[in-house]
């Protein structure tokens, strides 16, 4: 497990990260969500050791991250970068060698990953001759080439078509299954909601929410319930709960306990047919908007 602990970072007068702490658990996909300039990239760079922190530390299984571990991480920066005029497979082999792999092993593995990611074109094509989507696949391959012990991916899905997203997710899940912690940032909240096991939300340099997707969704469900009935639901306003929204047969109300909510249900059943009843499930999008405000 990679643990980020109380990281502070300033650039000049700008305090970019304020006491940032969260865990990236092994075997899970952790989504890292935040607006532009929230501090995602800076956090990721610090986790990778590319950038230093003013304060705080990054731990691996409770001990400070070693250089060996760092060299075994896979990284995909937000601003994409590979050598434009170098053959795709050659760059993968070059990067893998810097990670400590042998050239032969790297070449074998590189061809396999490119194939898995559905690279259209030859691995011996230069990067600049590929389409943007294929350059993106090469970039993901560069992060995966050395069988990373952990993955840090900045916006890995931007610029990919849905089938490429699926192929990438499958490969990432496979890496996670080897016990590697996987952290990825994304602006596409629906994608994050679908993919990630854990979620970290950052805004203005602070961690605003942090937990499993279901924990966050549950925490976001602040005791509101919805009820749809064939009969008019106006009576709920006198039932001892606070009504948030009311329109004929529809009512949304706040009940402090499940029991109180059930009392409303019982009342509704006595007055007519209940079509639906349940706690209000808000989307990640709404939760995100709420916690980052």
């Amino acid at each position, binding site marked *: *497990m990679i643990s980020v602990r109380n990281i502070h970072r300033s650039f000049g007068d700008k305090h970019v990260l304020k006491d940032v702490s969260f865990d990236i*658990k*092994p*075997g*899970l*996909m952790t989504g890292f969500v935040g607006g532009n300039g929230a501090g995602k990239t800076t956090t990721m*760079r610090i986790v*990778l*050791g*590319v*950038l*230093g922190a003013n304060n705080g530390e990054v731990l691996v299984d409770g001990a400070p991250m070693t*250089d*060996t*571990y*760092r*060299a*075994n*991480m896979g*990284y*995909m*920066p937000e*601003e*994409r*970068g*590979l*050598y*434009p*005029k*170098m053959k795709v497979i050659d760059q993968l082999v*070059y*990067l893998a*060698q*810097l*990670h*400590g*792999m042998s050239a032969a092993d790297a070449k074998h593995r590189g061809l396999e990953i490119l194939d898995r990611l559905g690279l259209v074109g030859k691995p011996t094509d230069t990067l600049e001759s590929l389409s943007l989507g294929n350059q993106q696949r090469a970039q993901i391959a*560069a*992060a995966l080439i*050395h*069988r*990373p*012990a*952990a993955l840090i991916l900045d916006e890995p899905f931007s610029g990919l078509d849905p089938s490429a997203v699926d192929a990438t997710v499958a490969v990432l*899940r496979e890496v*996670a*299954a*080897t*016990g*590697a912690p996987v952290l990825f940032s994304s602006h596409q909240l629906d994608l994050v909601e679908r993919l990630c*096991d*854990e979620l970290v939300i950052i805004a203005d340099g602070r961690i605003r929410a942090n937990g*499993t*997707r*279901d*924990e966050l969704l549950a925490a976001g469900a602040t005791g509101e319930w919805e009820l749809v009935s064939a009969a008019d639901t106006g009576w709920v306003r006198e039932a001892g709960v606070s009504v948030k929204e009311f329109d004929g047969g529809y009512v949304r109300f706040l009940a402090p306990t499940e029991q109180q909510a059930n009392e409303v249900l019982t009342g509704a059943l006595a007055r007519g047919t209940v079509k639906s009843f349940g706690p209000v499930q808000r989307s990640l999008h709404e939760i995100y908007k709420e916690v980052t405000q």
Partner: protein
Amino acid sequence: MSQQTMTQSPVGSGGAPKPELTPRPSFWNAVGIVAKREIITRSLSKSFIISTIVTLAIILAVMVLMPRIGDWMSGGPDTVAVVGEAEPVVAGIADGAEIQVLADDAAARQAVIDETVDVAVVPDDASPVGVKLYSLDDIPTDWLQMLSVSPTVELLDTDAANPGVLYLIALGFGIVWMMAAITFGMSIATSVVEEKQTRIVEILLATVSARSLLTGKIVGNSAAALVQILLIVGTIFLGLAINGDQLPTMNLTMPIIWFVVLFLVGFVMIASMYAAAAALVSRQEDLANVQQPIMWLVMLPYFAIIFAFNNPLALQVMSYIPFSAPVAVPMRVFTGQHEVWEPFLSLGILLATTGAIIWLAARIYENALLRTGKPVKWKDAIKSEA
């Protein structure tokens, strides 16, 4: 962690296997991998190979043809017209010239005007040497010399090179140093900016240290530069072998050895400076500005050696300045104006300066590498942490 997560995720965090860690390559291992890529991408590029072959061909052509250029320029042997008693005078000195004996002064004049002869020699009692020259539109210096009365000259130092040869050798060292330093310096600078511009540097730095990256670049480009210099030196010796009788072969061996040694150290110094300068900018377009001061440091010794090739004091001063030592020291060794220990002192000064510059360059490189956007100021890059 909640139970729900455990069931959703294919592999829970509890019993997850631990990925095996591959040992990180050692510093010099990483340097070797980076250097190899530099050499392959730079030296095996078509443009590099072609420009090298062209350079070598030009050097060989100059070496072989230079001694013969004089003959071609003058357009072969002269034809000379002589009149009367001037004939034996000319016959004694006309080295290979075609002699036409004409009847009188007027015929000789006409032959010159008609350009059937280059020059005419006629008797003239008014002249101190007894003859007069007719020439169409230029003063025939060689004939003047041949017909003049001169005191005898005895050169006491027969080993000393003549100024013409000295100038050519100065020019040679100057050009080779300047061209190689700028070509390979720019190559390393372009490579650094390319990595910054494409942001691959972030991936690289997440894997290897900035120092091994910088060292790899310097080693790779220095090796490529050295190979090119050795090819040039080899070509020069080949030219000397072909044309050995016309050029002072033996005298050049020691100067060239010193040149190669000083070049190698000096190039590492220049390369470090180029790398540091390039790390300051994020776009190739900004490169011209930051590398200008270095360009001057490389070009000034070239101009200086051309103007001062015959000035022992200037050469001595230049041999102790690290930036001009690679051209000045070989010149001094060639002319033999130095004490035996002096080239070693120059080398020592160059080594010390290079060490200091590498240290500074590594600091600038490390600090500026991840700063993108506007060019970073030298001062800020030396001072601050990234």
